[in-house]
């Protein structure tokens, strides 16, 4: 903190411009482009991975050497991945019931059954 050098941090400037550019491209892909939905999704996924790479290597400290407590960035990233796993797997586990994108298919019938059951209960 005592010796901050005042030269322009080129690495950060390039990273900043890159991340802005990728965000704009992603927004264009979703709003402005005529690409099929599948390709839009794949494109955004790839851009997201690149974006994470820019953040980790140009701004965060992934390239930092190990310190006394192990490699701190990797430790924190491990926790981050674990949590992301919980969020995604947990949401799929709890939220994927009674859904079917085939409208009027099984999902509808299930709903119908549920309603039927409820009626049974109220009959007691």
């Amino acid at each position, binding site marked *: 903190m005592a010796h901050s050098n*005042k030269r322009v941090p080129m690495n950060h400037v390039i990273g900043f411009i890159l991340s802005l550019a990728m965000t704009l491209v992603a927004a264009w892909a979703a709003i402005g482009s005529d690409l099929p939905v599948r390709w839009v999704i794949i494109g955004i996924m790839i851009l997201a991975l690149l974006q994470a790479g820019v953040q980790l290597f140009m701004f965060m400290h992934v390239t930092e050497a190990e310190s006394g407590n192990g490699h701190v960035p990797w430790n924190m990233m491990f926790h981050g991945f674990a949590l992301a796993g919980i969020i995604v797997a947990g949401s799929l586990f709890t939220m994927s019931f009674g859904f079917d994108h085939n409208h009027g298919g099984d999902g509808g019938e299930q709903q119908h059954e549920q309603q039927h059951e409820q009626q049974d209960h109220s009959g007691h």
Partner: protein
Amino acid sequence: MHITDILVTGEPIIYGAMVSMALVGIALLFLLTYFKKWGWLWREWLTTVDHKKIGVMYILSALLMLFRGGVDAMMMRVQLAFPDLGFLNSQHYNEIFTTHGTIMIIFMAMPFLIGLMNIIVPLQIGARDFAFPYLNALSFWSFFFGMALFNISFVIGGSPEAGWTSYTPLSGAAMSPGPGQNFYLMGLQLSGIGTLATGINLMVTILKMRAPGMKLFHMPIFTWSTLVTCFIIVFAFPILTVALALLTIDRIFGAQFFTLTGEGLPMMWANLFWMWGHPEVYIVILPAFGIFSEIIATFAKKRLFGYHAMVWSMIIIALLSFLVWVHHFFTMGAGAFVNSVFSISTMLIAVPTGVKIFNWLATLYKSKIEFTVPMLWSLAFIPSFILGGVTGVMLGMAAADYQFHNSYFLIAHFHYVLIAGTVFACFAGLVFWYPKMFGHKMNERLGKWAFWLFFFGFHVCFFPQYFLGLDGMPRRLFITNVVEWLPLNVISTVGAFGMGLGFIVFVYNVYYSFRYSERETTGDSWNGNGRTLEWATTTPVPYYNFATVPYVDEIDPYVRMKEEGKTTYEESKVKPIHMPSYTGQPFIMMAFLGLASFGLVFEWMYVAVFGLLGGIIMMIRRSFDYDDGYYVPVDEIKRTEKKARGL
């Protein structure tokens, strides 16, 4: 646009509130001008980066919010005890329970605890400030403007009215048009920035700035609870940020994440909300556990029993807190298997919590207890919290939850854990560390009055609500003139007013103690019972905290220091101290972002863009800010220490 288009009109109570707010505002402006305090306000408070002053501002804001949330609670209780009086209409009732919940959790409990952490944690670990003092000021001002934004909603634009959980689709644009729900989204988003930044800031401070020799397992238990809480904050708050952003985009820009149409998933909001919301309740209870542990050890005059078990149980609670969120919506109907999994993980949390309870009891066992006011709050916490915990396990049984869900049984449960846990801890911690903050203790006699009034009021208020719940009274209900419920509701209201009275006595005690309390002469205020480093500092604490940082290689280092007749101050080792400069930038930056949020609430895009641009310009300024702080010269340190220690 005319002013009456955005002001809330037609409610006598709100007109009254407007008038009183205007009067208080005018009185404040007048007093500041009359006593020529504007410069003082700016130099000493608005631009401060001192962790102790920021902590005091957090606590003052939290007390103000406790008042606001408490008034909301009283109004609800009046309506429920006298349903035929027509005190509130249904719309107003909805607004009040929404703001009551949101304010108490986000703008009262968290800032109160963060305020205590701000003041105490650096003192406990022998640090001179936070790792990032500028960021700390930024956190406070983002919380402050978020709080201000949320609180003006009831006079300008209308309050949010979809419950503090803001469930979609009710809170979506289709069913809650107007700015009300936007206030909730933007207020929480803005203050959430501050909470997240504080989490990172305190985590780095604790990991990197401990006194030489102090290993993690030498840290005071309150610092440990803060560290664990910071991990929960850092991992849980981004989920809320994303959920709020998605709902904001839904409402303001017409997306379909949580809507009923366009393949939106309304229940996904509940899922994301509680993925943050359950860790959130541990964010407000773990520091409370830490405070009670400190107080119980101090006044039992013993080392905390099972220190290691206490730490590990907090870590396990933190891990489990991310694995139980579905128990808030068992009735969604995800199926028996999903509910069973979360039912079991929920009950598992009772195990480490039970370990903590037994450790507190074992600390008290065969000790010579001193019944001071903070100790009374801590002793009252144990049985009261157990009542809340046991009913929590009852609610955690998925099958039984279908009966308890959204009834007053649930209301009683979470008030038992949040009030007996968090609010008791806030009062206890404030009274306990009050001499460190202000140089005098709070009056014990008035403190006991406040305690007993609040304690009895609390039980009289919430114990009957378990039975109201079992009698089938649902939460958030406006019409309650059902004959069977009326007597218990009246009793409950009496209790609520008892708590209100306790709060008034507490606040009066602040004034009374300021006028009449003896000034502290030593730093070790509680009859020399202090065990940790914060009591080794002088009172008032010098702005650099420690002239020389002591070497620490044990738990409760101050006990041994006192036995050996040592202090933390070694005159021969004084070196110039590097301190951060005060700056007004955090205040200005967050004022701009507050303006941007206000613009988004009313969907005035020009205002929003202007505020965001202002915020970005302030961030750019910060990026090219080369102020490295200043050094306190040795002479000045020696002079200050001499005066404080009476050498």
